[in-house]
């Protein structure tokens, strides 16, 4: 038995620590700990609810639109504001492109080095690499000359002796299965994806002024449309956006998705590793008509699956959500074993861990800044896999067709989805479908403009004197990493209470009062190898398959507007 610590987990957003127990090459127990706390919801109390999107947006700069959008929806729900359809479609384009771009960055720049050995690429034959690339995709950068150039660049980089971000990678680890040619192809696309991501995300710059952190607006979007003006959204803007949508789709279909399938085919054993919790949840997202309150219009449906039972999808009801702090550095008035719905959420931070520098957190009952959200008292996995499963089980034909096709190519059954590899593949499925949907929403927006509808903002309830004395609202969406909810209470024109329950809080949640592990922990304990504790590449594979976003996961809100109680180190 050995204790293994990986801290920092790199190639994620934020600060995550993983501790496991290893026995004869297997993981027997696991602890996931978030080691950063900022307290953003506390800061919201007393502020103008129309400002909340900007504050909550800064919860995360990787998921840069999702908190802003959830916040706008929560405030709109509280105040009875309906966003005009054109404004809703612009939001779909901004959010949809965010998810597509984020998933591709995740695959190449955060996840790929778990599967791709950069050093092995040096021994690839460029001609064979070219043949491989041509066999899976029509993407034009596929000549032997091109791959020889990339190889040469990597060669000289390695020879310089300054390895930079590739220093101390686990190169040569026996867990790397790809042939040198596949490694070289992936390295070339790693570099191409770096250029691609900064191009397509400029949809945010056109509608929101910048990326990261584009601007949003309660009631719609601030980017006014006027085809006859130089200083507004006009034909030139739409021409640029159309190009970005096409380039996004082409790269996804001709580079990312073929690469993902090719790489996955070399790692079939990972389709039975790292499944973890057996419950999946989606709140639904991408209203085709731009009206997010219309649950039936969601492209990805909402629903709950228990015990991997794909023959039954239960309706999602936010009243069933509650959070535990049994293993978290907080306290509840009702004690450590109760759970609270976000409307009643209390957050009193109380650090009881060791004084830094420390060695292990697993010796303490409380070991993280993450709370433990549960649905009907059960841990839930959220994210692309959960969305795909809910859609698949709900009879969503686009998802069913692509999933079945992929499973067929890999020669596995649906049970392979409940795994580390299934999570990574589901992200790819979703990206392919979303990259296509972007064009539909763009066409719908153009159609509205042609019909004379350019309204992007509803100002009926903009002025606070139109608001009720007190109101509360719930805003939700499916972010790249999973189900996101914002709950706001407004009193006398100011925020009285604000709570977010975030994808990475669901997935990185610690043990609850019953001792049930959250999804990261459960996945690491599900048929999980760890061959060399000094080079824990298997842990990275499974944790990265969730695409952790730690800054999102940790938040605090004081429900009564009191000053946060200062934490005492014991």
């Amino acid at each position, binding site marked *: 038995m050995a204790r293994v610590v990986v801290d920092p987990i790199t190639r994620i957003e934020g600060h995550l620590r993983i501790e496991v127990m290893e026995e004869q090459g297997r993981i027997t127990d696991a602890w996931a700990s978030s080691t950063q706390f900022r307290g953003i919801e506390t800061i919201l109390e007393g502020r103008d609810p129309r400002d909340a999107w900007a504050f909550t947006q800064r919860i995360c700069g990787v998921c840069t639109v999702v908190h802003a959008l959830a916040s706008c929806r929560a405030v709109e729900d509280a105040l009875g504001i309906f966003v005009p359809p054109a404004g809703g479609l612009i939001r779909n384009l901004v959010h949809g492109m965010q998810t597509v771009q984020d998933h591709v960055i995740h695959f190449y720049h955060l996840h790929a080095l778990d599967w791709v050995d950069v050093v092995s690429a040096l021994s690839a034959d460029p001609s064979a690499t070219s043949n491989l690339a041509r066999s899976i995709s029509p993407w034009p950068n596929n000549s032997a000359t091109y791959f020889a150039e990339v190889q040469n660049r990597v060669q000289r980089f390695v*020879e*310089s002796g300054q390895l930079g971000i590739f220093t101390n990678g686990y190169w040569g680890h026996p867990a790397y299965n790809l042939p040198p040619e596949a490694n070289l192809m992936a390295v070339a696309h790693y570099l191409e994806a770096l250029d691609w991501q900064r191009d397509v995300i400029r949809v945010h710059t056109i509608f929101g002024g910048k990326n*990261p952190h584009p601007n949003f607006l309660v009631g719609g979007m601030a980017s006014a449309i006027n085809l006859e003006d130089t200083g507004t959204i006009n034909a030139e803007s739409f021409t640029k956006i159309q190009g970005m949508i096409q380039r996004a789709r082409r790269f996804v279909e001709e580079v990312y998705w073929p690469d993902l399938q090719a790489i996955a085919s070399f790692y079939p054993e990972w389709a039975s590793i790292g499944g973890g919790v057996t419950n999946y949840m989606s709140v639904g997202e991408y209203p085709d008509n731009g009206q997010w309150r219309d649950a039936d219009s969601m492209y990805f449906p909402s629903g709950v699956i228990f015990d991997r039972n794909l023959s039954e999808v239960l309706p999602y009801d936010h009243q069933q959500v509650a959070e535990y702090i049994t293993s978290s550095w907080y306290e509840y008035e009702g004690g450590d074993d109760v759970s609270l719905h976000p409307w009643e959420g209390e957050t009193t931070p109380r650090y009881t861990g060791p004084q830094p520098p420390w060695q292990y957190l697993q010796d303490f009952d409380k070991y993280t800044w993450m709370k433990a959200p549960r649905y009907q008292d059960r841990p839930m996995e959220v994210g692309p896999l959960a969305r795909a499963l809910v859609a698949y089980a709900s009879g969503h034909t686009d998802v069913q067709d692509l999933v079945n096709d992929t499973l067929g190519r890999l020669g596995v059954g649906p049970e392979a989805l409940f795994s580390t590899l299934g999570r990574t593949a589901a992200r790819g499925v979703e990206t392919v479908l979303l990259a296509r949907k972007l064009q539909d929403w763009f066409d719908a927006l153009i159609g509205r403009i042609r019909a004379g509808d350019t309204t992007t903002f509803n100002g009926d309830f903009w002025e606070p004197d139109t608001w009720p004395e007190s109101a509360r609202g719930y805003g939700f969406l499916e972010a790249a990493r999973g189900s996101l909810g914002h709950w706001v209470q407004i009193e006398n024109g100011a925020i009285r209470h604000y709570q977010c329950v975030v994808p990475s809080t669901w997935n990185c949640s610690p043990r609850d009062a019953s001792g049930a592990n959250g999804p990261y922990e459960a996945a690491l304990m599900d048929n999980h190898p760890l061959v060399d504790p000094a080079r824990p590449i298997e842990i990275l594979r499974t944790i990265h398959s969730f695409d952790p976003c730690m*800054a999102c996961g940790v938040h605090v809100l004081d429900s009564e507007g009191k000053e946060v109680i200062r934490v005492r180190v014991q």
Partner: protein
Amino acid sequence: MFFPTSHAWTHDETLAEHLERRGVSRRDFLKFCGQISVMLGLSEALTPRVVEALQSVRRPSVVWLQLQECTGCVESVLRSADPTIGDLVLDLVSLDYQHTLMAAAGDAAEAALQASMEENYGEYILLVTGSVPLEEDGIYLTIGGRTGLEILEEAAAGAAAVIGIGACAHFGSVQAARPNPTGAVGIAEIVRDKPVVTIAGCPPIADVVTATVVHYLTFGRLPDTDGEGRPLFAYGARIHDQCPRRAHFDAGQYVERFDDEGARRGWCLYRVGCKGPATFSPCPILQWNDHTDWPIGAGHPCLGCTERFFWDTMTPFYGRLPNVAGFGVERTADTIGAALAVGSAAGVAAHAIATGVSRARERRKGAPLPVVPNPGTGPAPGTPDSGKEGSDG
């Protein structure tokens, strides 16, 4: 892409040799140096010095600490167009430690950090995103079981230059907004024995980060800054004074409500809360994401994110700044122009001293700013009287 590359920079090679081998012509190299000079606000006469410096420089080691943050500043630098992040990471510098991109994790990652700091002691460039939480001995941020404070102090000790990127490194940003539950501070409050340059913004524009690094490589020192530690080449002018919508301000043409007729004609956003008159930033000039657009250009008021404590001083975001000189249609463009010509020079100094230092100290001492729930009409008490600084002079 700047310098399309197929060769990495080797250890015994100058940049000029390196580029030549990569097939970049002397003419293109000189053009790049000229562009960098413009970005840095240098006179043309100084371009040869940039050329000389970039010809002799070798890949310097860079250590990038990510503290209490949202990773938005890292994402911003990933969007850098000129040079691209690929060029930066593979060719221009040796990025020895950077959580978001580095292959190694856990002990292997920390070993890479220690090795880089030891081998390049006194010579590496330290980039920092994120703030440092000081409450309760720093337990609100730990990496590898150590506090962010300890990690920053250690890394700063051996750094040749320290560059803080973004509002968190500047002043703590959103987590330092009242009531600042974790006691978050900017890095200049920790690193006191050497100058810290601050690339302000939430997040900042990537090109400013790159240009600051090049400035250091070229001249062997960090660029001159204002009282906030912000490089003058990027933050020396107010948004209001460079805004393409300024003519509408002077003409009294305002957006009164989002998506109204004024909004659809690209008029001035002052009355819906624009903080451009109180904000020093290169946004209107450099723009965002490869010069695609910028916040005001896309129809939303400026939030003032390059200014210290903007979460408290610039909110409510849709409230109007009080006392902006020239406000109102009765003033002619000539009158306003003359007043601004006098005001802007004094404005920089006043801004640096008044806004940066004294207000900052007041805020830290305590009394939270009042937030007015209804900013729709009249001035917002929570906003600074910054209009006086730039324009009333």
